């Protein structure tokens, strides 16, 4: 994959940061507004895909390290299953933070309300964990497939 024209690269430079910020916004507000870890992670990964098609696989690999993303992926999943393990005093996946008064532990106003960030118990934590996992997993998949395509093409020419 070669890099695309200057117009595309300039527009990418302008917007990819905003896409990533929007993705993290969706991840963090998953328990209040439409969205959540998967959707936000997919949005961030779409920014990676944008970088990839406008700059080409080889240039993007300098910016996004595959190793870093793999570590982030395992870390996100470990955090997710770790949060589930913490509920093991009662049951696996027990929401031990909800309505407890500590982190994310405020009781929600029942019925229609403007939303309070500090609610949801373990749900925001799991959203963050899954968000990290999805963005890194999709990023790794896109990067590896793109560089693999380059790899297969070279083999074909030689």
């Amino acid at each position, binding site marked *: 994959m070669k890099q695309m024209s200057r117009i595309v690269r300039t527009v990418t430079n302008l917007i990819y940061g905003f896409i990533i910020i929007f993705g993290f916004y969706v991840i963090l507000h998953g*328990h209040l507004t439409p969205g959540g870890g998967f959707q936000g992670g997919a949005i961030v990964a779409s920014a990676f895909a944008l970088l990839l098609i406008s700059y080409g696989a080889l240039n993007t690999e300098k910016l996004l390290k595959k190793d870093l993303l793999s570590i982030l992926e395992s870390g996100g999943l470990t955090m997710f299953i770790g949060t589930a393990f913490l509920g093991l005093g009662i049951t696996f*996946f027990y929401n031990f933070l909800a309505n407890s008064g500590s982190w994310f532990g405020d009781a929600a106003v029942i019925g229609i309300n403007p939303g309070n960030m500090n609610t949801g118990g373990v749900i925001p934590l799991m*959203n963050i964990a899954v968000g990290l996992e999805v963005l890194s997993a999709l990023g790794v998949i896109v990067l*590896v497939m793109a560089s693999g395509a380059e790899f297969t093409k070279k083999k074909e020419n030689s």
Partner: protein
Amino acid sequence: MKKIIFGIAFIIFFSFLIVSAINMRQFGEPIFSEMDDYFIENAQSETGANNVVTSIVFDYRGFDTLGEATVLFAAAVGIIALFRRVTK
């Protein structure tokens, strides 16, 4: 010959599915909704999250979500393994 067998199998399967769609309950008018009513009424007080879908995804059906994240992880690991460079 193979195409004829495939064609017959396809037609049988497709009519099977169409029959299921026609017999399905009316679109937009669920008959039973006990489980979902419970979620809509109690999700806010039990989990504290405003978004009922998220509270189902991460609380009531959290194990599904773990499985789904695992599928994505498995696919990523599998793709890295498939495109690994060094072969001894």
